[in-house]
């Protein structure tokens, strides 16, 4: 019987079936960061256990680090303490840390693929829900909690049940001004934030096939926002070309052997899925969220829907969303005034995202009332962008050019919304309070749309600027 990538990777990593009926699944790559690990290392120390496979464990600093002044000790004593714990734990357990001095530091989901640590056919875990990102290269990658981080450190394994598999096919061709971010926001709009519960998503179809690796990373990144446990794209020539020459990817003859293995893990034609969802890529327009979860979105030319048009059980959440955002049902999303613009995050903090945003930034200046931040996803992204002069384009247009980190995606450093500020953001969550202010408001959109909003001072249709 034809098998899927999920079938093959699951089988290859199965250590045994546990008495509970779950699988003891080997984790081939464990990525860690400063925020969700201190308690895990503490538990490990109390249990007098070592890290089982230190050579398969890599760390970085991303969530709490400042993106303006990175002089140690950090101005925020809590951030400094978290960093110190990370340094101490990585040293105590002899693990490799990509800190600022390495030139390889960055958001964990940006550096994994960029360094070639993330490879097809792997199982990957990280104490962060956006670990689904790594599925873009054909890996099965899970976000986990801190006690599970302890399990992976101690045993290199997780106790898990195999999810069901839904193929999400995006057919047709995307229109100009429509990007990978719009595709995943539209998938979530159509399938819902709970639609993926119990499933892994396999993204497929002509639109996904034609995407660059950066674009696939954006799509897989937000699988978790659709409720899916993980998401992946089958490895193909794009994947192989992407991995060639990466520092932690195999090289020489080993690369050729790896390619054979990578091609072999892809889902076979005729493989069956528990469910298949089809979307028409040609119908997608630039998408903007208007509410408090990533499903609450509309095309930029559309109006905010009415709670009365929703199933009864969803109406209270819709009303809460309208109240929090200060929007009315029937209001066009285009023209909504913004205060902050943020380009960055593990969703859209890669070089190609910055290039697109810079292309728009060239066409104007940041509106007077808008605070606009560009935060590269990694030191390598920052370096490459600076080599192309993107930093100067942004600075000339009135954007701030920052250092790599998670920044305003979740507001754990100084980069936060203030009060009820409205943010146009290339990040992944518009949850209440997400960007650091309990009353702050977030509109998710593509980096191009964020740049367009920054220079017009309101939600704009980037297609009109590109024209």
């Amino acid at each position, binding site marked *: 019987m034809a098998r899927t990538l999920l079938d093959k990777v699951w089988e290859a990593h199965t250590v045994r079936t546990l008495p509970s009926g779950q699988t003891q699944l080997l984790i081939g790559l464990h990525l860690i960061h400063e925020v969700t690990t201190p*308690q895990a290392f503490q538990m490990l120390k109390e249990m007098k256990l070592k890290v089982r496979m230190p050579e398969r464990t890599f760390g970085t600093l991303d969530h709490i680090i400042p993106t303006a002044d990175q002089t140690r000790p950090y101005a925020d004593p809590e951030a400094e303490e978290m960093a110190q714990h990370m340094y101490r734990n990585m040293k105590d357990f002899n693990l490799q840390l990509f800190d600022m001095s390495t030139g390889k530091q960055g958001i964990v989901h940006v550096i994994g693929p960029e360094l070639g640590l993330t490879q097809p056919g792997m199982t990957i875990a990280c104490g962060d829900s956006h670990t689904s990102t790594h599925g873009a290269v054909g890996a099965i990658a899970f976000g*986990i909690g801190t006690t599970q981080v302890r399990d992976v450190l101690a*045993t290199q394994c997780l106790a898990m049940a195999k999810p069901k598999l839904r193929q999400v096919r995006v057919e047709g061709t995307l229109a100009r001004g429509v990007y990978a971010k719009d595709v995943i926001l539209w998938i979530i709009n159509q399938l819902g934030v*709970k639609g993926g*519960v119990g499933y892994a998503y396999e993204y497929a179809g002509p639109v996904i096939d034609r995407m660059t690796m950066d674009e696939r990373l954006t799509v897989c990144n937000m699988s978790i926002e659709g409720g899916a446990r993980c998401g992946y794209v089958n490895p193909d020539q794009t994947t192989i070309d992407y991995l060639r020459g990466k520092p932690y990817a195999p090289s020489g003859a080993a690369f050729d*052997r790896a390619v054979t293995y990578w091609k072999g893990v892809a889902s076979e034609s005729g493989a069956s899925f528990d469910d298949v969802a089809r979307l028409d890529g040609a119908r997608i327009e630039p998408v903007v969220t208007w509410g408090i979860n990533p499903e609450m979105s509309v095309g930029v030319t559309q109006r905010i829907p009415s709670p009365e048009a929703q199933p009864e*059980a*969803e109406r209270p959440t819709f009303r809460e969303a309208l109240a929090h955002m200060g929007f009315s049902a029937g209001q066009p999303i285009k023209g909504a005034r913004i205060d902050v613009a943020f380009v960055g995050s593990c969703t859209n903090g890669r070089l190609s995202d910055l290039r697109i945003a810079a292309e728009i930034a060239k066409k104007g200046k940041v509106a007077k009332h808008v605070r606009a931040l560009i935060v590269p996803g990694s030191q390598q992204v920052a370096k490459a962008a600076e080599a192309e002069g993107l930093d100067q384009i942004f600075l000339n247009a009135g954007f701030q050019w920052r250092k790599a980190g998670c920044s305003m995606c979740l507001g754990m450093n100084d980069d936060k919304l203030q009060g009820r500020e409205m943010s146009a953001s290339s990040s992944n969550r518009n949850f209440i309070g997400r960007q650091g202010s309990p009353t702050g408001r977030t509109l998710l959109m593509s980096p191009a749309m964020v740049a367009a909003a920054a220079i017009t001072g309101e939600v704009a249709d980037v297609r009109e600027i590109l024209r």
Partner: protein
Amino acid sequence: MTSQRQQITGRGIPVTGNDIDTDRIIPARFLKAVVFDGLGEHAFEDARKQNPEHPFNSPAYRGASVLVVGQNFGCGSSREHAPQALMRWGIRAIVGGSFGEIFAGNCVILGIPCLRASQEDIEWLQREIGRAPQSSITVDVEKQEVRLGNRVIKASIPDGPRNQLVNGTWDSTSVLLEAGAAIEATAGRLPYVKGF
């Protein structure tokens, strides 16, 4: 430290609404501590400040241990701080329409069962708890039911977590360690571990 969790009995607390994410349960600023201690008092902190009527503010629900929630509770961020905050507030079991999967996994590893029930039964439970907060609720993991007064509600939990909780193997490190050399043997068969 692991013990069996066949059933949990206690008073209930209802939190209505769907898609309540883990940022809402515990805002990110509380993730900056290197220990989980003290998180209990910050559960739903911002939601409570903005809404004085929030159930976690109400003296009527103080001491409750069974949380009853809507659909997709605990979606979003993988932060274990969310179930840690609820546990340290006093929650021992959660009954809901559905759960974010990372959240549910984090709950199991702390010994907190998350059981699913129908929308109709959830709404009834939430109304009933609101009407009589002192009522005792039993969450029966083994039988997969929730009992309140004379009513028995069908509830479900996937087999894996159910077996872990009922058999007392939910704290998984020791169970995973039992595989011993089979772990290295599995790794050794993977081309990428061998270096191709």
